[in-house]
Structure formats: structure tokens, C-alpha cells
């Protein structure tokens, strides 16, 4: 499994803003597709689902070597809602970098705060 160092230029954004991401390869491997997804997650005790997903699409395929780095951008939807907590669940934004690999995929995830309009 690959290990990533995932960073964003800013972890706070307004609806419509562009997120600038950087990912460094800490532990290598081979990927069938490296892509980033911005997900609005609905989390309850049992479930973790996203119905709003913005994806970069695969931006790299091939061997991953320590020291390699990639940059990517994602646009926060113009109608994005902020995070919200209920008594039995919460809504929040998460940037999920995933590497499609045989067996378990590798992931690196960071939270993003989307501000209310």
C-alpha cells in the first residue's frame, strides 16, 4: 500500500472556490489511478455516505516512487452547504485522495471547512 503526504493550500473555502492540493509519495507502490474527491459526507453511527462528490478523475497511472509529488485542483460546488451536527449524525466535507490498487486501495484524507454563504 502506498502512503501519501496530502496537503492543501487552504483548508477553508467558500462555495465556488478552487482548492489547490499537493500530494507527496512517502511510501511507493503502483497505482491504476490516482485521484482526489471532495465529498460531502453524511455520517451516522452506522453509515458514511456521500451524495455530493467532486472528482479530479485519475490524474496519474503507473509506479509511485518516494519523492514524487503531484498537484491537483478541485472546485467547491457553488451551492455547497457548510458542515452541520445533529444529535445522531453530522454533515462535513472531506478531501479523499485515493489510489486504485489491487486489493485494498490506499487513501489519504483531510477535512475541509466550507463556509456558509
Amino acid at each position, binding site marked *: 500500500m502506498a502512503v501519501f503526504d496530502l496537503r492543501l493550500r487552504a483548508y477553508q473555502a467558500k462555495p465556488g472556490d478552487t482548492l489547490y492540493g499537493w500530494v507527496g509519495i512517502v511510501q511507493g507502490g503502483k497505482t491504476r489511478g490516482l485521484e482526489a474527491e471532495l465529498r460531502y459526507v453524511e455520517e451516522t453511527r452506522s453509515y458514511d455516505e456521500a451524495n455530493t462528490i467532486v472528482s479530479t478523475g485519475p490524474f496519474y497511472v503507473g509506479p509511485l516512487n518516494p519523492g514524487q509529488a503531484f498537484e491537483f485542483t478541485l472546485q467547491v460546488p457553488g451551492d455547497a452547504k457548510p458542515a452541520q451536527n*445533529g444529535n445522531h449524525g453530522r*454533515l462535513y466535507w472531506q478531501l479523499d485522495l485515493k489510489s486504485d490498487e489491487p486489493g485494498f486501495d490506499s487513501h489519504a484524507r483531510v477535512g475541509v471547512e466550507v463556509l456558509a454563504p
Partner: protein
Amino acid sequence: MTTGPPDFGFAPVANQFRGAEGFSLVLDRYELRRGESLVATVLVTDPSAITGTFELGLVCTERWADYHHHARSDMPDHRQTYEEPIYQWWLPLDRNQPRTDLTLPVVPEAPFSHVGTALSFLWTVTARDRRSGFDKLERHDLTVLP
């Protein structure tokens, strides 16, 4: 065959009420932002038809899905949806007033509307004649924007 909003798996949630008799409810808007207000108008056409507790409520309901694992029974594991008011404000109404206009503020820190699959926050305005059996009510959905 059912019509109406898309089915997100909330169908088992029962709504035990009947349509309003002797009164009706109209809102001046059906979409607003947190921190804004709306005006609800209750019109009473037949006071004698209202026999229970007559009231108007602004309610936000949280709906969430949980997974149920039945370790000690033959029931299959399944996804179940629950709902619970997360915010509610009820005001008494006078059945002898032919028309009542009430301003309902949605406070800035209130939850906003969200319709999802695992978690939803749903706002409604309801005028009801609350009885020991079925309530008689008129309910309108409201969209509260962040």
C-alpha cells in the same frame, strides 16, 4: 404506486394524522435563510370542528439511518431509518379567531435543510388540532438555506 418526493428509504416512518378540518394554513414563503422569518397565516372556517389543542409549530426533524444486526434472531440484518425533532417551537392558536398571522423566526444557529440518504434535516410548519387519537393537521415543507 406512490407519488411525491423521491424515496430515500424512509418509507417505514409512519405519519399518523388526518387532514385539517375547520382550518387551513398558508405561508408567505417556503424558502428562507437562517436568521430570516416567515409569516404563517391560519384561517379558521369552522371553530366547532376544532375540538383538541389548537396550535402552530415550526419543527426541524432529524432523520438518520442505522444498521441493525440481529445476532440472536433469524431476522435479517437491515438498514432502518429513525426520526426525531431536533428543534420545535409550538404556539397556541385561538380557534375563535377567524385569521391569525404569526411571524416565525428561524434563528441563525438553527440547522439548515438537507435531504440525504443517511442523514437529513427536514423543516415543516404545521397547524394542528391535537387530539387523543389522530391529530388533524395541515403541514407545509419549508426549505431553510444555510
